[in-house]
Protein backbone atom coordinates (compact mmCIF):
# COMPACT_ATOMS: atom_id res chain seq x y z
CA UNK A 1 0.00 0.00 0.00
CA UNK A 2 1.36 3.38 -1.02
CA UNK A 3 1.77 6.16 1.48
CA UNK A 4 -0.91 8.82 1.22
CA UNK A 5 0.37 11.86 -0.63
CA UNK A 6 -0.36 15.05 1.21
CA UNK A 7 -2.13 17.73 -0.81
CA UNK A 8 -0.11 20.86 -1.49
CA UNK A 9 -1.40 23.93 0.34
CA UNK A 10 -4.54 25.48 -1.10
CA UNK A 11 -2.72 28.67 -2.04
CA UNK A 12 -0.13 26.75 -4.05
CA UNK A 13 -2.81 24.85 -5.98
CA UNK A 14 -4.61 28.10 -6.75
CA UNK A 15 -1.37 29.80 -7.76
CA UNK A 16 -0.61 26.98 -10.20
CA UNK A 17 -4.09 27.34 -11.71
CA UNK A 18 -3.73 31.10 -12.10
CA UNK A 19 -0.31 30.73 -13.72
CA UNK A 20 -1.28 27.89 -16.06
CA UNK A 21 -4.83 28.80 -16.96
CA UNK A 22 -5.19 32.54 -16.44
CA UNK A 23 -1.78 34.06 -17.11
CA UNK A 24 -0.86 31.35 -19.61
CA UNK A 25 2.76 32.39 -19.31
CA UNK A 26 5.64 33.10 -16.94
CA UNK A 27 4.62 33.71 -13.36
CA UNK A 28 7.40 36.19 -12.70
CA UNK A 29 6.27 38.68 -10.12
CA UNK A 30 3.05 36.92 -9.18
CA UNK A 31 2.81 37.03 -5.41
CA UNK A 32 0.10 36.18 -2.95
CA UNK A 33 -0.72 39.89 -2.81
CA UNK A 34 -0.74 40.64 -6.54
CA UNK A 35 -4.00 42.55 -7.15
CA UNK A 36 -5.60 40.16 -9.63
CA UNK A 37 -8.77 42.18 -10.09
CA UNK A 38 -7.26 45.65 -10.14
CA UNK A 39 -4.69 44.63 -12.74
CA UNK A 40 -7.33 42.95 -14.87
CA UNK A 41 -5.71 39.50 -14.59
CA UNK A 42 -8.91 38.02 -13.24
CA UNK A 43 -11.61 38.98 -15.73
CA UNK A 44 -15.26 37.97 -15.68
CA UNK A 45 -14.51 34.98 -17.94
CA UNK A 46 -11.47 33.83 -15.98
CA UNK A 47 -13.38 34.25 -12.72
CA UNK A 48 -15.99 31.80 -14.00
CA UNK A 49 -13.22 29.32 -14.83
CA UNK A 50 -11.62 29.83 -11.42
CA UNK A 51 -14.94 29.15 -9.67
CA UNK A 52 -15.42 25.98 -11.75
CA UNK A 53 -11.89 24.88 -10.84
CA UNK A 54 -12.51 25.50 -7.13
CA UNK A 55 -15.69 23.40 -7.30
CA UNK A 56 -13.92 20.56 -9.09
CA UNK A 57 -10.62 20.59 -7.19
CA UNK A 58 -11.82 21.40 -3.68
CA UNK A 59 -15.41 20.15 -3.81
CA UNK A 60 -16.91 23.44 -2.71
CA UNK A 61 -19.31 25.60 -4.64
CA UNK A 62 -18.71 29.31 -4.08
CA UNK A 63 -22.13 30.87 -3.38
CA UNK A 64 -23.10 33.90 -5.45
CA UNK A 65 -22.88 36.19 -2.44
CA UNK A 66 -19.27 35.16 -1.85
CA UNK A 67 -18.23 36.19 -5.37
CA UNK A 68 -17.11 39.65 -4.25
CA UNK A 69 -13.95 41.67 -4.49
CA UNK A 70 -12.74 41.09 -0.94
CA UNK A 71 -12.75 37.31 -1.55
CA UNK A 72 -11.11 37.36 -4.98
CA UNK A 73 -8.80 40.37 -4.99
CA UNK A 74 -5.59 38.32 -4.62
CA UNK A 75 -4.37 34.77 -4.04
CA UNK A 76 -4.33 35.21 -0.26
CA UNK A 77 -8.01 36.19 -0.27
CA UNK A 78 -9.02 33.40 -2.62
CA UNK A 79 -7.17 30.76 -0.58
CA UNK A 80 -8.72 32.11 2.61
CA UNK A 81 -12.20 31.89 1.13
CA UNK A 82 -11.65 28.36 -0.17
CA UNK A 83 -10.31 27.13 3.16
CA UNK A 84 -13.22 28.72 5.01
CA UNK A 85 -15.79 27.20 2.64
CA UNK A 86 -14.10 23.80 2.88
CA UNK A 87 -14.24 23.85 6.65
CA UNK A 88 -17.88 24.96 6.58
CA UNK A 89 -18.71 22.18 4.11
CA UNK A 90 -16.88 19.62 6.25
CA UNK A 91 -18.83 20.64 9.33
CA UNK A 92 -22.10 20.51 7.38
CA UNK A 93 -21.55 16.97 6.09
CA UNK A 94 -20.60 15.56 2.70
CA UNK A 95 -19.66 18.00 -0.02
CA UNK A 96 -22.41 18.72 -2.48
CA UNK A 97 -22.03 19.70 -6.11
Amino acid at each position, binding site marked *: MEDAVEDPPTAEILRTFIVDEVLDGPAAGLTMETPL*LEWGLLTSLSTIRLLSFIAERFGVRVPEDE*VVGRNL*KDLNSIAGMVNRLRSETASDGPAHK
Partner: protein
Amino acid sequence: MDFAWPTDAQQTYDRILAELAGWADTPAGEFFSRTQWLRCGELGLLGLSVPVAVGGGGFGFSAAARAAEAFGLGCADFGLVFGALAHLFACAMPIVEYGTPSVAARTLPRLTSGAWIGANAVTEDAAGSDVSAVETRAVRDGAGYRITGTKSFVTNGPLADVFVLYARTDPALGHLGLSGFVVERDTPGLVAGPAFDKLGLRSCPAGTLTLTDCWVPEQCRLGREGQGAAIFQASMRWERSCLFAAYLGQMSRVLDRCVRHARERRQFGRRIGSNQAVSHLLAELRVRLDAAGLLLYRSCWLLDQGRPARAETAMAKLAVSEAAVDLSLAAVRIFGGRGVLVETGIEQELRNALPSTIFSGTSEMQLEQIAKEMGL
Protein backbone atom coordinates in the same frame (compact mmCIF):
# COMPACT_ATOMS: atom_id res chain seq x y z
CA MET B 1 -37.36 14.13 -25.21
CA ASP B 2 -40.55 15.97 -26.09
CA PHE B 3 -40.58 18.70 -28.75
CA ALA B 4 -44.25 19.56 -28.30
CA TRP B 5 -45.11 22.91 -26.72
CA PRO B 6 -47.28 22.90 -23.58
CA THR B 7 -50.81 23.97 -24.40
CA ASP B 8 -50.59 27.29 -22.55
CA ALA B 9 -47.34 28.29 -24.28
CA GLN B 10 -48.86 27.50 -27.66
CA GLN B 11 -52.04 29.41 -26.83
CA THR B 12 -49.95 32.43 -25.88
CA TYR B 13 -48.01 32.12 -29.14
CA ASP B 14 -51.23 31.94 -31.17
CA ARG B 15 -52.84 34.80 -29.26
CA ILE B 16 -49.86 37.11 -29.81
CA LEU B 17 -49.76 36.31 -33.53
CA ALA B 18 -53.48 36.93 -33.89
CA GLU B 19 -53.28 40.28 -32.08
CA LEU B 20 -50.25 41.44 -34.03
CA ALA B 21 -51.97 40.84 -37.36
CA GLY B 22 -53.76 44.17 -37.07
CA TRP B 23 -50.77 46.28 -36.00
CA ALA B 24 -49.33 49.00 -38.21
CA ASP B 25 -45.58 49.53 -38.36
CA THR B 26 -44.02 52.68 -36.98
CA PRO B 27 -43.99 55.27 -39.81
CA ALA B 28 -40.60 55.59 -41.53
CA GLY B 29 -38.35 58.09 -39.84
CA GLU B 30 -40.20 57.94 -36.52
CA PHE B 31 -39.66 56.13 -33.26
CA PHE B 32 -42.25 53.86 -31.70
CA SER B 33 -44.99 55.76 -29.91
CA ARG B 34 -46.33 55.57 -26.37
CA THR B 35 -49.56 54.24 -27.86
CA GLN B 36 -47.72 51.33 -29.47
CA TRP B 37 -45.84 50.75 -26.22
CA LEU B 38 -49.05 50.58 -24.20
CA ARG B 39 -50.43 48.05 -26.69
CA CYS B 40 -47.34 45.94 -26.12
CA GLY B 41 -48.07 46.18 -22.41
CA GLU B 42 -51.73 45.18 -22.89
CA LEU B 43 -50.61 42.17 -24.89
CA GLY B 44 -48.29 41.14 -22.05
CA LEU B 45 -45.14 41.52 -24.13
CA LEU B 46 -43.46 43.92 -21.70
CA GLY B 47 -43.72 41.56 -18.74
CA LEU B 48 -43.52 38.04 -20.13
CA SER B 49 -41.03 36.82 -17.51
CA VAL B 50 -41.96 39.25 -14.74
CA PRO B 51 -43.79 37.64 -11.78
CA VAL B 52 -47.57 37.61 -11.99
CA ALA B 53 -47.79 39.41 -8.64
CA VAL B 54 -46.42 42.62 -10.19
CA GLY B 55 -48.35 42.41 -13.43
CA GLY B 56 -46.20 40.08 -15.50
CA GLY B 57 -46.82 36.77 -17.20
CA GLY B 58 -44.65 34.73 -14.83
CA PHE B 59 -43.07 32.83 -17.73
CA GLY B 60 -39.82 30.91 -17.50
CA PHE B 61 -37.17 31.05 -20.19
CA SER B 62 -38.79 28.62 -22.63
CA ALA B 63 -42.27 30.09 -22.51
CA ALA B 64 -40.94 33.66 -22.64
CA ALA B 65 -38.78 32.78 -25.64
CA ARG B 66 -41.70 31.17 -27.43
CA ALA B 67 -43.77 34.33 -26.90
CA ALA B 68 -40.85 36.47 -28.11
CA GLU B 69 -40.64 34.29 -31.21
CA ALA B 70 -44.29 35.06 -31.96
CA PHE B 71 -43.57 38.78 -31.45
CA GLY B 72 -40.72 38.64 -33.98
CA LEU B 73 -42.78 36.62 -36.42
CA GLY B 74 -45.89 38.76 -36.28
CA CYS B 75 -44.32 42.21 -36.07
CA ALA B 76 -42.11 43.38 -38.94
CA ASP B 77 -41.43 46.60 -37.02
CA PHE B 78 -38.37 45.02 -35.48
CA GLY B 79 -37.20 48.21 -33.79
CA LEU B 80 -40.33 48.00 -31.64
CA VAL B 81 -39.73 44.30 -30.99
CA PHE B 82 -36.13 44.95 -29.97
CA GLY B 83 -36.99 47.95 -27.82
CA ALA B 84 -39.74 46.08 -25.98
CA LEU B 85 -37.66 42.97 -25.32
CA ALA B 86 -34.55 44.93 -24.29
CA HIS B 87 -36.79 46.84 -21.87
CA LEU B 88 -38.04 43.54 -20.44
CA PHE B 89 -34.87 41.48 -20.27
CA ALA B 90 -32.21 44.11 -19.52
CA CYS B 91 -34.19 46.54 -17.37
CA ALA B 92 -37.19 44.83 -15.79
CA MET B 93 -35.55 41.44 -15.14
CA PRO B 94 -32.54 42.80 -13.20
CA ILE B 95 -35.06 44.60 -10.98
CA VAL B 96 -37.08 41.38 -10.60
CA GLU B 97 -34.00 39.37 -9.68
CA TYR B 98 -31.96 41.91 -7.69
CA GLY B 99 -34.09 44.96 -6.89
CA THR B 100 -35.11 45.96 -3.39
CA PRO B 101 -38.82 45.37 -2.62
CA SER B 102 -39.63 49.08 -2.61
CA VAL B 103 -37.96 49.71 -5.99
CA ALA B 104 -39.55 46.59 -7.47
CA ALA B 105 -42.99 47.63 -6.23
CA ARG B 106 -42.59 51.12 -7.70
CA THR B 107 -41.11 50.21 -11.08
CA LEU B 108 -42.29 46.77 -12.18
CA PRO B 109 -46.04 47.40 -12.47
CA ARG B 110 -45.28 50.51 -14.56
CA LEU B 111 -42.75 48.67 -16.72
CA THR B 112 -45.01 45.70 -17.40
CA SER B 113 -48.10 47.80 -18.17
CA GLY B 114 -46.22 50.04 -20.57
CA ALA B 115 -46.74 53.16 -18.49
CA TRP B 116 -42.96 53.40 -18.34
CA ILE B 117 -40.23 52.70 -20.84
CA GLY B 118 -37.12 51.06 -19.40
CA ALA B 119 -33.52 51.11 -20.57
CA ASN B 120 -30.23 49.45 -19.77
CA ALA B 121 -27.09 51.57 -19.62
CA VAL B 122 -23.83 49.66 -19.46
CA THR B 123 -21.89 50.48 -22.65
CA GLU B 124 -19.48 53.40 -22.70
CA ASP B 125 -17.33 54.76 -25.50
CA ALA B 126 -14.31 52.96 -24.05
CA ALA B 127 -16.22 49.99 -22.64
CA GLY B 128 -18.03 47.88 -25.22
CA SER B 129 -17.32 44.18 -24.94
CA ASP B 130 -14.98 44.95 -22.05
CA VAL B 131 -17.38 45.71 -19.23
CA SER B 132 -14.47 45.91 -16.79
CA ALA B 133 -13.41 49.14 -18.53
CA VAL B 134 -16.51 51.00 -17.33
CA GLU B 135 -15.45 54.42 -16.03
CA THR B 136 -18.74 55.74 -14.68
CA ARG B 137 -18.23 56.13 -10.93
CA ALA B 138 -20.64 55.74 -8.04
CA VAL B 139 -19.22 57.22 -4.86
CA ARG B 140 -20.82 56.75 -1.46
CA ASP B 141 -22.48 59.89 -0.19
CA GLY B 142 -24.60 59.66 2.93
CA ALA B 143 -27.43 57.17 2.51
CA GLY B 144 -26.76 56.78 -1.17
CA TYR B 145 -24.35 57.29 -4.03
CA ARG B 146 -23.33 60.07 -6.36
CA ILE B 147 -22.99 58.79 -9.92
CA THR B 148 -20.96 60.52 -12.62
CA GLY B 149 -20.19 59.31 -16.12
CA THR B 150 -21.44 58.95 -19.67
CA LYS B 151 -23.11 55.90 -21.15
CA SER B 152 -23.58 55.18 -24.82
CA PHE B 153 -25.78 53.02 -27.05
CA VAL B 154 -28.53 53.12 -24.44
CA THR B 155 -31.39 51.31 -26.16
CA ASN B 156 -34.68 53.20 -25.55
CA GLY B 157 -32.58 55.84 -23.76
CA PRO B 158 -34.01 58.96 -25.44
CA LEU B 159 -37.54 57.94 -24.40
CA ALA B 160 -36.89 55.97 -21.21
CA ASP B 161 -38.46 56.75 -17.86
CA VAL B 162 -36.12 54.55 -15.85
CA PHE B 163 -32.62 53.19 -16.34
CA VAL B 164 -30.77 50.20 -15.00
CA LEU B 165 -27.18 51.36 -15.11
CA TYR B 166 -23.82 50.06 -14.05
CA ALA B 167 -21.14 52.12 -12.35
CA ARG B 168 -17.84 51.49 -10.65
CA THR B 169 -18.05 51.57 -6.87
CA ASP B 170 -14.48 50.33 -6.31
CA PRO B 171 -11.90 50.88 -9.05
CA ALA B 172 -9.44 48.54 -7.33
CA LEU B 173 -11.66 45.49 -7.79
CA GLY B 174 -11.86 45.21 -11.58
CA HIS B 175 -15.05 43.58 -12.78
CA LEU B 176 -16.06 42.93 -9.17
CA GLY B 177 -15.97 46.65 -8.49
CA LEU B 178 -19.09 47.31 -10.57
CA SER B 179 -22.52 47.87 -9.06
CA GLY B 180 -25.96 48.12 -10.62
CA PHE B 181 -28.43 50.94 -9.93
CA VAL B 182 -31.99 51.86 -10.83
CA VAL B 183 -32.20 55.54 -11.72
CA GLU B 184 -35.31 57.41 -12.75
CA ARG B 185 -35.26 59.93 -15.57
CA ASP B 186 -36.18 62.95 -13.46
CA THR B 187 -33.20 62.45 -11.14
CA PRO B 188 -31.28 65.76 -10.98
CA GLY B 189 -28.05 65.53 -12.99
CA LEU B 190 -29.33 62.93 -15.45
CA VAL B 191 -29.52 63.91 -19.13
CA ALA B 192 -30.63 61.52 -21.87
CA GLY B 193 -29.05 62.55 -25.16
CA PRO B 194 -30.71 62.63 -28.59
CA ALA B 195 -31.17 59.47 -30.63
CA PHE B 196 -28.35 58.21 -32.82
CA ASP B 197 -28.94 57.82 -36.55
CA LYS B 198 -28.55 54.03 -36.96
CA LEU B 199 -28.40 51.53 -39.79
CA GLY B 200 -31.02 49.18 -38.37
CA LEU B 201 -33.66 48.85 -35.65
CA ARG B 202 -34.45 52.40 -36.64
CA SER B 203 -37.82 52.72 -34.89
CA CYS B 204 -36.07 52.05 -31.57
CA PRO B 205 -34.13 55.08 -30.32
CA ALA B 206 -30.69 54.68 -28.76
CA GLY B 207 -28.48 57.41 -27.43
CA THR B 208 -26.17 58.58 -24.69
CA LEU B 209 -26.92 59.03 -21.03
CA THR B 210 -24.92 61.55 -19.04
CA LEU B 211 -24.90 61.59 -15.26
CA THR B 212 -23.37 64.46 -13.36
CA ASP B 213 -23.24 64.08 -9.60
CA CYS B 214 -26.53 62.20 -9.78
CA TRP B 215 -27.55 61.21 -6.26
CA VAL B 216 -29.49 57.97 -5.82
CA PRO B 217 -30.52 56.38 -2.53
CA GLU B 218 -28.90 53.10 -1.46
CA GLN B 219 -32.21 51.28 -1.91
CA CYS B 220 -31.85 51.89 -5.66
CA ARG B 221 -28.74 49.73 -5.79
CA LEU B 222 -29.32 46.31 -7.34
CA GLY B 223 -28.03 43.46 -5.22
CA ARG B 224 -24.86 43.99 -3.23
CA GLU B 225 -22.12 46.49 -3.89
CA GLY B 226 -19.74 44.88 -6.38
CA GLN B 227 -22.36 42.54 -7.79
CA GLY B 228 -22.95 44.59 -10.92
CA ALA B 229 -21.04 42.38 -13.34
CA ALA B 230 -22.95 39.31 -12.13
CA ILE B 231 -26.26 41.16 -12.43
CA PHE B 232 -25.39 42.25 -15.94
CA GLN B 233 -24.43 38.71 -16.90
CA ALA B 234 -27.70 37.45 -15.43
CA SER B 235 -29.59 39.86 -17.67
CA MET B 236 -27.53 38.71 -20.64
CA ARG B 237 -28.68 35.12 -20.12
CA TRP B 238 -32.25 36.41 -20.64
CA GLU B 239 -31.29 38.48 -23.67
CA ARG B 240 -29.11 35.87 -25.34
CA SER B 241 -31.85 33.28 -25.08
CA CYS B 242 -35.26 34.93 -25.00
CA LEU B 243 -34.64 38.16 -26.92
CA PHE B 244 -32.97 36.24 -29.71
CA ALA B 245 -36.02 34.04 -30.05
CA ALA B 246 -37.59 37.08 -31.71
CA TYR B 247 -35.02 36.69 -34.48
CA LEU B 248 -36.25 33.12 -35.00
CA GLY B 249 -39.63 34.65 -35.71
CA GLN B 250 -38.11 37.24 -38.02
CA MET B 251 -36.21 34.53 -39.91
CA SER B 252 -39.34 32.41 -40.31
CA ARG B 253 -41.20 35.39 -41.73
CA VAL B 254 -38.42 36.26 -44.16
CA LEU B 255 -37.91 32.66 -45.23
CA ASP B 256 -41.64 32.28 -45.92
CA ARG B 257 -41.51 35.38 -48.12
CA CYS B 258 -38.49 33.99 -49.96
CA VAL B 259 -40.22 30.67 -50.62
CA ARG B 260 -43.37 32.42 -51.88
CA HIS B 261 -41.26 34.65 -54.11
CA ALA B 262 -39.25 31.70 -55.45
CA ARG B 263 -42.50 29.92 -56.33
CA GLU B 264 -44.10 32.95 -58.00
CA ARG B 265 -41.23 34.73 -59.73
CA ARG B 266 -40.58 33.38 -63.24
CA GLN B 267 -37.43 33.91 -65.28
CA PHE B 268 -36.39 32.12 -68.47
CA GLY B 269 -39.83 30.55 -68.59
CA ARG B 270 -39.80 28.89 -65.21
CA ARG B 271 -40.09 29.61 -61.52
CA ILE B 272 -36.79 30.72 -59.99
CA GLY B 273 -37.39 28.20 -57.21
CA SER B 274 -36.96 25.40 -59.73
CA ASN B 275 -33.30 26.37 -60.04
CA GLN B 276 -31.19 24.43 -57.61
CA ALA B 277 -29.10 27.53 -56.99
CA VAL B 278 -32.19 29.00 -55.35
CA SER B 279 -33.93 25.93 -53.93
CA HIS B 280 -30.79 24.56 -52.29
CA LEU B 281 -29.97 27.96 -50.86
CA LEU B 282 -33.44 28.10 -49.30
CA ALA B 283 -33.08 24.55 -48.02
CA GLU B 284 -29.73 25.44 -46.44
CA LEU B 285 -31.32 28.48 -44.80
CA ARG B 286 -34.12 26.33 -43.42
CA VAL B 287 -31.52 24.07 -41.83
CA ARG B 288 -29.74 27.09 -40.34
CA LEU B 289 -33.01 28.42 -38.93
CA ASP B 290 -34.08 25.12 -37.39
CA ALA B 291 -30.61 24.41 -35.98
CA ALA B 292 -30.46 27.85 -34.41
CA GLY B 293 -33.93 27.32 -32.95
CA LEU B 294 -32.97 23.99 -31.43
CA LEU B 295 -29.85 25.51 -29.86
CA LEU B 296 -31.87 28.39 -28.48
CA TYR B 297 -34.61 26.27 -26.95
CA ARG B 298 -32.07 23.84 -25.49
CA SER B 299 -30.45 26.81 -23.82
CA CYS B 300 -33.85 27.94 -22.47
CA TRP B 301 -34.59 24.46 -21.20
CA LEU B 302 -31.28 24.32 -19.32
CA LEU B 303 -31.87 27.78 -17.85
CA ASP B 304 -35.34 26.68 -16.76
CA GLN B 305 -33.65 23.82 -14.89
CA GLY B 306 -31.52 26.37 -13.04
CA ARG B 307 -28.38 25.38 -14.92
CA PRO B 308 -25.86 28.09 -15.91
CA ALA B 309 -25.84 27.05 -19.61
CA ARG B 310 -23.08 29.53 -20.36
CA ALA B 311 -21.68 27.75 -23.41
CA GLU B 312 -25.11 26.69 -24.64
CA THR B 313 -26.50 30.22 -24.38
CA ALA B 314 -23.48 31.63 -26.20
CA MET B 315 -23.91 28.99 -28.93
CA ALA B 316 -27.58 29.88 -29.28
CA LYS B 317 -26.93 33.62 -29.52
CA LEU B 318 -24.13 33.09 -32.01
CA ALA B 319 -26.12 30.69 -34.19
CA VAL B 320 -29.28 32.78 -34.24
CA SER B 321 -27.60 36.10 -34.98
CA GLU B 322 -25.27 34.77 -37.67
CA ALA B 323 -28.14 32.88 -39.30
CA ALA B 324 -30.31 36.01 -39.19
CA VAL B 325 -27.69 38.01 -41.07
CA ASP B 326 -27.01 35.28 -43.63
CA LEU B 327 -30.69 34.60 -44.19
CA SER B 328 -31.69 38.22 -44.68
CA LEU B 329 -28.71 38.85 -46.97
CA ALA B 330 -29.74 35.82 -49.02
CA ALA B 331 -33.28 37.17 -49.10
CA VAL B 332 -32.08 40.43 -50.67
CA ARG B 333 -30.31 38.42 -53.37
CA ILE B 334 -33.30 36.14 -53.99
CA PHE B 335 -35.56 39.16 -54.40
CA GLY B 336 -33.03 40.66 -56.82
CA GLY B 337 -33.58 44.29 -57.68
CA ARG B 338 -36.73 44.37 -55.58
CA GLY B 339 -34.68 43.22 -52.62
CA VAL B 340 -32.94 46.56 -52.40
CA LEU B 341 -36.12 48.62 -52.75
CA VAL B 342 -37.29 49.99 -49.42
CA GLU B 343 -40.94 49.46 -50.41
CA THR B 344 -40.40 45.68 -50.68
CA GLY B 345 -39.50 45.50 -46.99
CA ILE B 346 -36.67 43.01 -47.42
CA GLU B 347 -33.71 45.36 -47.09
CA GLN B 348 -34.98 46.45 -43.68
CA GLU B 349 -34.84 42.84 -42.49
CA LEU B 350 -31.12 42.79 -43.35
CA ARG B 351 -30.53 46.11 -41.61
CA ASN B 352 -32.39 44.84 -38.54
CA ALA B 353 -30.42 41.59 -38.50
CA LEU B 354 -26.96 43.15 -38.73
CA PRO B 355 -26.86 44.61 -35.19
CA SER B 356 -27.73 41.21 -33.73
CA THR B 357 -24.15 40.03 -34.17
CA ILE B 358 -22.99 42.96 -32.03
CA PHE B 359 -25.44 43.67 -29.19
CA SER B 360 -25.72 41.33 -26.19
CA GLY B 361 -22.07 40.40 -26.82
CA THR B 362 -20.46 40.21 -30.23
CA SER B 363 -20.10 36.95 -32.13
CA GLU B 364 -16.41 37.03 -31.26
CA MET B 365 -17.23 37.27 -27.54
CA GLN B 366 -19.64 34.34 -27.84
CA LEU B 367 -16.89 32.26 -29.47
CA GLU B 368 -14.54 33.29 -26.68
CA GLN B 369 -17.09 32.19 -24.07
CA ILE B 370 -17.60 28.86 -25.79
CA ALA B 371 -13.84 28.28 -26.11
CA LYS B 372 -13.28 29.10 -22.44
CA GLU B 373 -16.03 26.69 -21.43
CA MET B 374 -14.23 24.05 -23.51
CA GLY B 375 -11.13 24.61 -21.38
CA LEU B 376 -9.19 26.53 -24.02
